[in-house]
């Protein structure tokens, strides 16, 4: 085996091991940052696209379509204004919908939102398009005071089929926020709910929710109302419900597709028809999610630009590392030249060295990115219940890695030119 240029490069990297490692790490961090940002951006979009599933429209009395989507699908806050049952029936009958599912929010269990709804929520609504609900255990509720628990809520609370729970009126966290006018949350101690089902994870915000039927929710609020006037009341049943107790906060709608007509043609018509009613807010979740990401994408650009700056600065640090080592290596370069190594070959050696640092950095970056994305996904899931599956799109990953390596190679050019120009004679003399 003869010596090769690669041997010389390897020895050179080895001789400056610390510098090599630190420089490669710098490149690695920059590459990782880029990869994670790209990955999270795509994964975040995917995560936000989850939850609306096969619904076409959401109706509520929130102030804006965006708020309607954030509240109705992502459980940001319980909608403040209710929709009367008569109004629901009017809307549901206004045109042929595949489903018109009433939803009501406002109660919670240990900080997890409770969505009161109808059984169609499980039979007709799909949280992700083409993926109906799956039960990890048990079944859907089919009578009052039965509750189904989302996957994350079940994991965090330890609830299982057969558990008995009491719901809290309002969201417990509002007390901590110190909102003076917020209704003080209280536990509906009189009404025990039985957990009858636990759902499989869907990757949507629904995983953090609990689901029960509308009637039981109406009953516990009617009970509160009745106790205000007569504290001696012990029980409230469905028979005690008044029309004003039958309130919901949102409607999930799916336009029925007629044979021979594309739903994309029906949807705008349905949307416009509903929008003519000034008392309700109607939103197309897909549009609102796009709008949300248009807003976020500005921040995206800034973050990507910052990652780019980190990338460039890491290239500069490669340049500096090689530049600083030039003093040490001028003699070596001179000796190689005397032995017959040509200037272009010396140039090649240094650019190769920088490129190898870039390759090492890219590898470190990829490893860091995969690990980092998993950590970030965990944080997002635990902190805001956003289920993000880090996806590294092959073409973007390849582009970032190649970019990192090319930038490193480019950074090797300055010291390589120095070595190219370096006078042999001057650096063969004795030291000192």
């Amino acid at each position, binding site marked *: 085996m003869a010596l090769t240029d690669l041997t010389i490069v390897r020895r050179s990297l080895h001789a400056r091991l610390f510098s090599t490692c630190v420089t490669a790490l710098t490149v690695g961090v920059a590459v990782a940052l880029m990869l994670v940002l790209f990955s999270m951006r795509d994964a975040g979009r995917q995560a936000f696209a989850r939850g609306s599933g096969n619904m076409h429209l959401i109706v509520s009395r929130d102030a804006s379509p965006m708020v309607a989507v954030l509240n109705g699908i992502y459980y940001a806050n319980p909608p403040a204004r209710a929709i009367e049952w008569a109004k629901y029936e009017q809307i549901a009958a206004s045109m042929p919908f595949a489903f018109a599912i009433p939803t009501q929010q406002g109660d919670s269990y240990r900080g997890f939102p409770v969505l009161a709804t109808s059984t169609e929520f499980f039979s007709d609504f799909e949280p992700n398009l083409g993926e109906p609900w799956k039960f990890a255990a048990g079944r859907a509720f089919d009578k009052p005071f039965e509750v189904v628990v989302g996957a994350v809520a079940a994991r965090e609370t330890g609830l299982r089929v057969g558990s008995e729970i009491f719901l809290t009126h309002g969201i417990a966290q509002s007390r901590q926020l110190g909102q003076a006018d917020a209704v003080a949350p209280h536990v509906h101690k009189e009404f025990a709910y039985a957990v009858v089902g636990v759902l499989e994870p869907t990757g949507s915000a629904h995983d953090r929710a609990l689901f029960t039927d509308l009637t039981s929710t109406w009953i516990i609020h009617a009970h509160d109302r009745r106790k205000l006037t007569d504290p001696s009341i012990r029980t409230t049943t469905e028979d005690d419900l008044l029309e004003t107790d039958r309130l919901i906060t949102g409607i999930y709608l799916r336009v029925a597709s007629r044979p021979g007509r594309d739903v994309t043609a029906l949807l705008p018509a349905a949307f416009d028809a509903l929008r003519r009613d000034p008392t309700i807010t109607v939103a197309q979740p897909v549009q609102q999610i796009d709008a949300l990401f248009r807003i976020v994408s500005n921040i995206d650009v800034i973050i990507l630009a910052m990652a780019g700056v980190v990338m460039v600065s890491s290239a500069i640090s490669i340049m500096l590392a090689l530049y600083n080592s030039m003093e040490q290596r001028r003699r070596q370069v*001179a000796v190689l030249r005397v032995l*017959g190594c040509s200037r272009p070959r010396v140039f090649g050696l240094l650019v190769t060295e920088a490129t190898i640092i870039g390759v090492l950095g890219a590898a470190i970056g990829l490893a860091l990115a995969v690990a980092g994305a998993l950590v970030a996904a965990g944080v997002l899931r635990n902190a805001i219940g956003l289920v993000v599956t880090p996806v590294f799109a092959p073409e973007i990953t390849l582009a970032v890695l190649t970019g990192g390596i090319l930038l490193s190679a480019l950074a090797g050019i300055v010291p390589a030119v120095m070595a190219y120009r370096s006078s042999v004679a001057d650096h063969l003399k004795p030291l000192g």
Partner: protein
Amino acid sequence: MPESPVHQDATPALRIADLRFRYPGARPTDPWIIDIAALELAPAEQMLLTGGSGRGKSTLLHLIAGVVDLEAPNAGRIEVAGRNVHALRGPARDAFRARHIGMVFQTFNLLHGFSALENVMAALMFSDIPPREHRALAAALLESLGIERTDAAPDRLSVGQQQRVAVARALACSPELVLADEPTASLDPENADIAMDLIQNACRTRGTALLCVSHDPAMAERFPRRARLDDLHTAHLHAAAPGLAAGREGGEAWR
């Protein structure tokens, strides 16, 4: 010390003609640092060039090796093994140097981070010698020069052994000419003696010509042929001044 064999009909290992050199940036009125009308070294011949420091000894060697360019207003012809070194450009000259010229330095200039064997192999990697022969060639050469720990890093070897590695490296490609630049300056007298024996014997055995520059007076007796660089210059000036284009046989007087 036996007289070096001189074959008049063979191509000289080194032939210098009308060589004049000033460092780049020097004024046209400055004297030439090197000004040699003619100097010839027969195959396997050994010659000592003496002179104080700063008199251009190293520069002459660098010119011969072609690591310093000979550009206008500098002029002259330097042939090694019959090839005009400065007619070759860039990589071609480097390749020529790899194959035909070996250099030995005062500070050895061994490559750090490379074993003794690899230092010798480094000289072979720039030559046209087939790569698969490199390891065996280098090992055999080191063995013949008495280096057993060929895998040792140079800084783990004694100074004397380091010099052997440097000599082995200079001879690796069986060059026609070895240029030795103060090869004993960092050695004590005893080691200097050993080193010079080594260099001279190795060159003699391989039929390689040796041009050694040194200011060590003890070296003189080792070389039947020797000259002071200043005298080469002076002789040239006497023989040819002021016209520089005339024939220059004066240098040969110093054979």
